[in-house]
């Protein structure tokens, strides 16, 4: 565990102080609990996700942060033994309501995974995959437009524009992850969930992705799970600290990293456990 120096911490959070955004609640978790079979992994989590902000979920391994993230677009549905209790809303609509189509929900709440997982297709087809499924482009020119825009927003266009027909799996790890982000952006989601998006990347690629996350905040709401305190401090406006399946504390990132209310948060961010 790296211990941040006081100085770097203040620099990191200082930038965020200025970035005040509107405070619309995009998603809200209300007493969310998750069971895997008989085992309860998440207990009574109440957490708001604010629009056009980056919310970071931190905490030691196995604390339930990824589990909570996967509840937000119902990816837990794909695990047979998983069961979710409580209520999660997106724009005040219950996403676990019977009337909600999970496919539509996932188009609105996109996801980027821990390990870059481009499909074994060309770069173009990787990005075009989502729009094709949802019928977003009527003509080839429209599709070209969507692909180009998405790759540009994901800050990878210049690197791949000359080789769109080559396989996405041939890119480097950092490029693959940005391709996956482009793929998620291509279906125009409102919320993007990122599950430790940089944990498989080297520091330079990580820096590129972090920059990208900050840019994406203009148009999207982002929830990011991360193991790196520095990353949470650098990219997020709000931070939520999980421990042993409980939400310990949630608040503005600058406050969380300088003056947390909970002893456990204090210990975790200073590297005393985790």
């Amino acid at each position: 565990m790296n211990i941040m120096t006081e100085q770097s911490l203040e620099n990191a959070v200082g930038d965020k102080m200025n970035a005040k955004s509107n405070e619309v609640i995009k998603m809200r978790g209300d007493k969310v609990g998750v069971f895997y079979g008989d085992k309860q992994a998440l207990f009574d989590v109440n957490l708001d996700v604010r629009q056009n902000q980056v919310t970071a979920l931190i905490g030691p391994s196995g604390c339930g942060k990824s589990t909570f993230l996967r509840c937000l677009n119902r990816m837990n549905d794909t695990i047979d033994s998983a069961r979710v209790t409580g209520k999660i809303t997106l724009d005040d609509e219950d996403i676990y309501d019977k009337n909600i189509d999970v496919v539509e929900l996932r188009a609105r709440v996109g996801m980027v995974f821990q390990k870059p997982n481009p499909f074994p297709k060309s770069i173009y087809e990787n990005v075009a995959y989502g729009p094709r499924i949802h019928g977003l482009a009527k003509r080839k020119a429209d599709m070209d437009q969507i692909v180009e825009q998405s790759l540009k927003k994901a800050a990878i266009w210049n690197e791949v524009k000359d080789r769109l027909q080559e396989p996405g799996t041939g890119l480097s790890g950092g490029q693959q992850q940005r391709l996956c982000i482009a793929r998620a952006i291509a279906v125009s989601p409102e919320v993007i969930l990122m599950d430790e998006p940089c944990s498989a990347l080297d520091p330079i690629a990580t820096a590129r992705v972090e920059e990208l996350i900050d840019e994406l905040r203009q148009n999207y709401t982002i929830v990011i799970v991360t193991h790196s305190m520095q990353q949470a401090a650098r990219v997020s406006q709000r931070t939520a600290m999980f421990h042993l399946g409980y939400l310990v504390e949630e608040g503005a990132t600058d406050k969380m990293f300088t003056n947390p209310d909970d002893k456990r948060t204090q210990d975790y961010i200073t590297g005393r456990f985790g």
Partner: protein
Amino acid sequence: MSSLLVLAIVVAIGLVAFVIGRQRAAAQDNGTVKPHSRAHYHGWWACLLAVLPAVLLLTAWNIGSSVYLDRHIHAALPERTANSAVASEALDVSLVKSLAKGLRQLDANTLAALPATFADLQPLLAAKGVALATDTQDYMIPIAVEANAVQSRLGMIGAALTLLLSVAGAFYALGQIRPRARARNNVERLMLWGLLGASTIAILTTVGIVLSMLFQTIQFFESVSPMSFFFGTVWDPRFAAAGSGGSQGQFGLIPLLAGTLYIALVALLVAVPVGLMSAVYMAEYATPRIRSVVKPALELLAGIPTIVYGIFAVVTLGPFLRDLSAALTGGSPFIQGQSIFTAGLVMGMMLIPVVSSLSDDIITAVPRAMRDGSLGLGATRSETIKRVILPAALPGIVGAILLTASRAIGETMIVVLAAGVAANLTANPFEAMTTITVKIVNQLTGDLEFNSPQTLVAFALGITLFALTLVMNIVALYIVRKYREQYE
């Protein structure tokens, strides 16, 4: 002393060597020097040195002494003349050998006063339950007695040498035991050779099979031209009576090849869609509980012997389809009792578990990250399967299908029963047709002279079949390489 007993003693020596070797190595480990190999490696090395060279020697000795014995008997037999009592020299030798074997059953007293004529000897042997050919000659008796003596002498020498080598090997290995001796490396090198040998056997067997067919095939092509075999459209290998030279029938491959491919095609048309869909269901949709019941049940289908499928086809499905077609046309059935359609249908059922089981494994091997990626973008399960999982699994699935096709082409019993043996050339799937495998069986069974083209054609057919599946495998590999969508 019999070889089996010698072998047992050698193994016992090996076991003793193992135990002593292990103890000795353990005793030498007094904590001052770190031993290179653990104690049981020293034990194994002693055991291997005691057993392996001894067994090799015993095998070589047995082969050598039986050759020597044959020569010995040969030399002792009287010079052959035109009116020898026994038809051939080889028969002579084998008669002496069986006589010698019979004599070994007799006790010492009888042997001491052995009658000089076969007529007197026969009742004595018969009393011991030994029956001998009646043309055994009197002059063979002393030769047989002599042969027995030689054999037992050779056997004793061989046994003694083997045991000596075994004990020597054990002592040598035990003497080598030092804390820094590299027993582990020795044992593992020997293991490596063993593994190499095992894998070589498979390759050598393949070569042997091809060669054994090749020689007979060349012999066949000496009497029938390759042109008329490969491009002939009539299969009529007349079973010509001996001596009726010229008319030897026609051996056209085309009707058989067409039948083989036609039936395989029908079978694949049944098996591939059904098998693939069941694999998709099993891998993607079935709950663990359903899967745990349905998958074994499906694989049970693969365990049914193909002859039983054939019975099902000929007793149940064939007549049913014939009657059904008769009812449809209101008179004459257009599906015959034995037909391509029936055979293909039943063979397809047999192949369903093959396709589904192989494809299931391949689909399950597609990483979960692919599914998550697609589902996370809002794709439905079926879209994910169609657009991501099946394309990613495609090379494997193509491989599975070609493997299945090879089985369909090589399948015999179902077609024998369900498609008939008539070598027709027809495009109508409701008529009887036959396959290469069926004709191989046909040509090799019965009282035929072995070196007639009627029999030898089976080998030409066999090698054609072999080449066919070989080409298919090569094509499969090519397709898999070319269209591989690599994940990871």
